[in-house]
C-alpha cells in the first residue's frame, strides 16, 4: 500500500526544478487549505543512514531555496495521504502560525558549553507564597521548572548584541557538562554572517558558544504535543 513520505510543509506550491526525493522519487504536493506538504510516494520507510539523512536534508534545502516559508518535517515521516490530510486540517492554525514565523528566515544552532550550568537566582516572592495555598504553590513551582527548562541564562551578556538579529529562540537544555544547552535562533535570511560575528566576539566568562548554520528552520516546528 503506497504512502507518502513528507519532507516539509510550505506556504506555497514550490516552483518546478527542486529535484527528486531521497529515493529519486518525483516530488509532488498534498494541499489542505493554505498548507502545502512536499511529499514523495514511497512504500517503505527509508533506512536511517548517513546517506539517507543527508539526502533528506538536501531535499529540504532545495525546497527552502525555492520558497519563502518552510517547516521541515522530521525524518522518517511516512503515512497515508488521507492521514496526512487529516493531520494538516486538524493542526492548520498552529502550522500556519509557525509558517508565518519562519517566513523569510533560517536557523542558527548555538551550542552552549561549560563546566556547570548557570544557576539563576530566582527572586522568591515570599509575600506571595504565604497567601497561596499548597495547590497554587505547587503549580507555581511547576511553572518555574517548565520555564527553567526552556531558558539559557548563560547567554544573558550576549542578549544586547543578539537582539538585532534574533527573531525567535528555542532552547533545549542538556545540563551535561561540557554540553550545557543547545539554543536555536531564528534569523532573517542573509544575516548568518552578522550572527557569526556576534558569537565570535562573545565574552561569556567560563562559558563557550559555538555556532553552526544557517539551516532550514527545523527547530521552529510547533511542539508535537502542544
Amino acid at each position, binding site marked *: 500500500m503506497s504512502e507518502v513520505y513528507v519532507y516539509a510543509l510550505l506556504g506555497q506550491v514550490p516552483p518546478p526544478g527542486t529535484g527528486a526525493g531521497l529515493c529519486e522519487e518525483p516530488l509532488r504536493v498534498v494541499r489542505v487549505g493554505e498548507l502545502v506538504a512536499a511529499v514523495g510516494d514511497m512504500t517503505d520507510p527509508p533506512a536511517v543512514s548517513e546517506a539517507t539523512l543527508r539526502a533528506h536534508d538536501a531535499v529540504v534545502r532545495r525546497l527552502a531555496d525555492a520558497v519563502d516559508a518552510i517547516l521541515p518535517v522530521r525524518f522518517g515521516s511516512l503515512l497515508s495521504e488521507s492521514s496526512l490530510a487529516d493531520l494538516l486540517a486538524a493542526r492548520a492554525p498552529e502550522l500556519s502560525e509557525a509558517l508565518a514565523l519562519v517566513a523569510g528566515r*533560517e536557523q542558527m544552532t548555538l551550542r552552549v558549553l561549560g563546566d556547570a550550568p548557570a544557576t539563576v537566582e530566582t527572586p522568591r516572592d515570599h509575600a506571595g507564597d504565604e497567601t497561596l*495555598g499548597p*495547590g497554587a504553590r505547587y503549580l507555581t513551582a511547576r511553572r518555574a521548572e517548565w520555564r527553567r527548562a526552556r531558558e539559557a541564562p548563560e547567554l544573558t551578556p550576549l542578549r544586547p548584541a543578539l537582539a538585532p538579529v534574533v527573531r525567535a529562540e528555542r532552547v533545549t537544555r542538556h545540563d551535561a557538562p*561540557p554540553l550545557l544547552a543547545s539554543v536555536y535562533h531564528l534569523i532573517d535570511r542573509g544575516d548568518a554572517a552578522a550572527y557569526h560575528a556576534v558569537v565570535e566576539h562573545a565574552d561569556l566568562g567560563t562559558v*563557550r558558544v559555538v*555556532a553552526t548554520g544557517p539551516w532550514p528552520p527545523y527547530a521552529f516546528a510547533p511542539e508535537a504535543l502542544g
Partner: protein
Amino acid sequence: MTREPAKSRPASLHVRELESLRAELERRVGEFSPPRWNADPEDVQRSVARLVLTLVEFLRQLMERQAIRRMEARTLTAEETEDVGQALMRLEETIRDIGRRFGLAPEDLNLDLGPLGRLI
C-alpha cells in the same frame, strides 16, 4: 541564493564537547526501530502497571502543561488554580505510590515512541 552551512569558524567543538554532543543525541534519538512494549511473561503485572502508569503520567503532564498555560493567560480563578494544583499534586503522589508498589521508579515510567520522542 545558495545557503550552505557556514565554513568552520575559529570556534568549533573540542573533542570532549563533541563526545558530549554525540552522547546527548544518542540518548535523545534512542533506537531507530519502532519501540516495543512487550509484556514480560515473568512479570506481566509489572509490565501492565508500567504501561498504564506511563500513560497516566503522560496525561498528567499534558494537563499540567495546559493548567500552566491557563494560569499564565489568567483564565483560571484563584480557586481553580488551587483546586487544579492540588489535584495534580495528588495525582503525582498517587502515580508514585502505585509505581513504588510494583518496584517502578519515576524514571521507569517512560515509553520511547521513536519519532514522538520519549512519551514523557
